[in-house]
């Protein structure tokens, strides 16, 4: 069920009514279970296609319960290994390609995010952070909560259960909550059907031009078309994902859930690492908690005189973490390496620049607008080029051009796109400041009911306009495929 479909709208209304009329914890749990089940089942064409993911969920629940009763490192290791292997097998990762495939078509919708939640449950239950035993219905409601099933945000069970388990009566929402939620939902749809659709249209145009270029075409021409394509794809992804998050968070408020924010103005990030603290925040935090921290802890234990190698261990930790994040996004090793290298180089540069310039000068430099715009431009363009491997097969380029050509082009494109992005950042900054001021005035609580509604209605009008004007279908939600 697509978030932009009519069916979803109907589903939300029915679920909302059911959600509000049920009383008591058990009833609420059952109703939520049915809602989640209905949403989940909308992705399956056949019953057989749902079997693998259902088996995965049942196994995962068994392992969570096992971790609750037997708190031994060996059980923890086996549990994590088992869920990751089943996940890799069902997701058909290349490193398990030797194993026989299931002889029928099945769906793995939301499986990555279910895995994140399951690992979090197993580890936290083992460590004792989750003290109560988790029932099967609660487990399913947590792992398959319809609003966050497809693509997060990744909510911690402790936060989820505080909100979910405390629901014994109908929700109490203020007018400001409701208006805020409606506004957020409408903004999300504007991003999806308007901006994301616009950028995917531009991207397809540029991408078509790019692939039509023949071998031997001048580097400048290739750089220009590739630059256009990669940047437009980046913005398509940005609006697609943030739009989806706005819809999810807005609906969450209406359903009585305060879901964590997943974005914090990522276009303002002036470095690669800062970007990941602003983009898909819950994923970054998950990787920090369940991958980076344990890895660095383990490396500190393994490496002799680890105190002397703190920086190197940190760099290695970042490299490995972003390598895995990249590989999770797509099995293309290029994206994984670019993300890993980006993080490592950023970490090295941080230490290096502090040594060269000193803390005071660095602080002054960081306060310089021009320097910031350049950094932001380079960050965005580096990421835009990296995520080009989501839509481009590296083998195509590899067979088309020499390695030196690719390397030189990479830096050329990076520099050119970086410079253009830096200029765009200046405009973005001005626009963002204006929009922010405008938003503050518009969404001010003291504003009359009429003005607030006019604001919401104008958003609705933009959505209708954007959805009618385009001849292409509404862009699919990209992160659904991860």
């Amino acid at each position: 069920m697509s978030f932009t479909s009519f069916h979803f709208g109907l589903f939300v209304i029915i679920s909302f009514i059911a959600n509000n009329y049920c009383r008591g914890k058990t009833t609420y749990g059952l109703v939520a279970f049915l809602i989640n089940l209905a949403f989940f089942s909308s992705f399956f064409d056949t019953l057989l296609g749902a079997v693998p993911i259902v088996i995965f969920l049942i196994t995962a629940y068994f392992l969570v319960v096992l971790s609750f009763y037997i708190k031994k490192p060996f059980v923890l290791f086996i549990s994590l290994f088992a869920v990751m292997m089943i996940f890799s097998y069902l997701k058909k990762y290349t490193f398990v390609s030797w194993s026989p495939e299931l002889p029928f078509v099945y769906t793995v919708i939301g499986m990555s995010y279910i895995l994140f939640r399951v690992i979090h449950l197993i580890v936290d239950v083992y460590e004792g952070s989750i003290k109560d035993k988790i029932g099967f219905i609660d487990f399913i409601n947590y792992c398959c909560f319809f609003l966050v099933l497809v693509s997060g945000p990744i909510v911690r069970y402790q936060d989820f259960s505080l909100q979910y388990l405390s629901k014994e009566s109908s929700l109490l929402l203020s007018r400001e909550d409701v208006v805020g939620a409606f506004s957020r939902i409408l903004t999300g749809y504007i991003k999806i059907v308007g901006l994301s659709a616009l950028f995917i249209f531009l991207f397809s145009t540029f991408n078509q031009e790019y692939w039509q270029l023949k071998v031997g075409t001048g580097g400048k021409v290739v750089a220009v078309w590739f630059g256009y394509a990669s940047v437009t794809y980046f913005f398509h992804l940005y609006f697609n994902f943030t739009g989806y998050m706005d819809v999810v968070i807005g609906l969450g408020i209406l359903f009585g859930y305060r879901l964590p924010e997943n974005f914090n103005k990522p276009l303002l990030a002036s470095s690669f690492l800062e970007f990941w603290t602003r983009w898909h925040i819950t994923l970054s935090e998950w990787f920090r908690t369940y991958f980076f921290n344990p890895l660095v802890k383990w490396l500190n234990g393994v490496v002799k005189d680890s105190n002397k190698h703190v920086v190197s261990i940190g760099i290695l930790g970042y490299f490995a973490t972003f390598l895995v994040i990249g590989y999770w996004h797509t099995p293309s090793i290029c994206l994984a390496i670019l993300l890993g290298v980006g993080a490592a180089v950023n970490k090295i540069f941080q230490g290096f620049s502090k040594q060269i310039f000193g803390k005071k000068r660095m602080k002054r430099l960081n306060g310089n607008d021009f320097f910031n715009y350049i950094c932001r431009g380079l960050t965005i363009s580096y990421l835009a080029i990296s995520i080009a491997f989501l839509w481009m097969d590296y083998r195509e380029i590899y067979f088309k051009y020499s390695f030196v050509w690719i390397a030189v082009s990479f830096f050329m494109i990076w520099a050119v796109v970086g410079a253009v992005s830096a200029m765009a950042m200046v405009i973005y900054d001005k626009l963002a400041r204006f929009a922010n001021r405008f938003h503050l005035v518009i969404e001010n609580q003291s504003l009359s009911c009429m003005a607030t509604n006019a604001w919401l209605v104008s958003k609705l009008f933009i959505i209708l306009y954007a959805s009618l004007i385009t001849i292409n279908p509404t862009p699919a939600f990209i992160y659904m495929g991860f």
Partner: protein
Amino acid sequence: MRIVAKQLFVLIFSFALLYAVIWCFTYIVYPTTRNYLDTYQDAVYFSNDKPEYYLYGRGAGLVVRGRGLLAENVSNIVVTGASTSVEGFRPPVMQKYITNGIVHNLSIGASNMTQVGQVVDLVLEATPEDKRNNLHFIVGVSYVLLRPDSEMWPGGVTNVETEMLKYGMYKSKGESRFRSAHYKYFISFLRPILIVDELFRRVVTDHLFKTIWYINNKWLRPMQFLISDNLNRVSVSEEYKVYVDREMHRRMGSVNDEIGDEQFERLIDISKKVHQSSAKLTVVDLPLAKWHMLKSKHFASYQKNKMHFFERLKEIGTVNIIDMQYMNNDDDFYDFAHPKPQTSVQWSSYLGEILSKMKY
């Protein structure tokens, strides 16, 4: 829950109210004052004419969304073709000769015969069956209109099809969501959306395209002569003639500069459709600048092939063929194919006189 339901109701009600207000407003800003359709605004980039704005769009957009007007007249004469027909046949001039019917120009710049066929389909769809015998199509033909589909529409979708798919009017190519009698109500419903589109065109895209067109032709291509205060005074440079030869060779997509049968067959299809619907068809063999006719291999190929197809057209019946090929001199064109404004008056009068003899 009550507060959410209340907010949802207020939102939907306010939206409906706003929509209704804008809908009424569109009738004040864009009152229906004319009884004919004309796609001429597309050509305003080339001249100093003041652009006319239609709510329903321009070019292909005007054809798709504005054709409801055709149903209101008893008898219609519809000119179709490409940019030469847009500029060459001016409805106000032709109308002076015609007492029994309204002249419209639904030609679309950068068309080929496939797109002309789609325009014919849309016009037939918009004309009630009992009025189709009072419908007369004029198709302006030159070899330029016979550009193969693979070259003309590499994406497989014509401009008319794009406009048909917009606003959800058509589900897919040619599959309408509405009965032909009902689509005009839907278009009327769309007026608040269309006005936003039109304002955007007026404020942003028009200026943008005009600037790009100006920069492109002023500095990047040898067509500076097109930017003139008066198109009637333009003369063609030798540099431009070379450019046209090269450009037409590239555009027509044929290695040996031959005109294939594909688009001629489309013309035959059009005449069959028109004949079946009991409407009438006149094919005008359009003139080109003589310097171009003498040199162009495409033109030579067109001349060689056309006789066979024109014979087939005559066999179908209710088809007239008007030969205008050699009625002009080089000075009458501002480039290789498009008539100067003063020539347009001549063409329009000529065609108007012929039509008046057909008891229009």
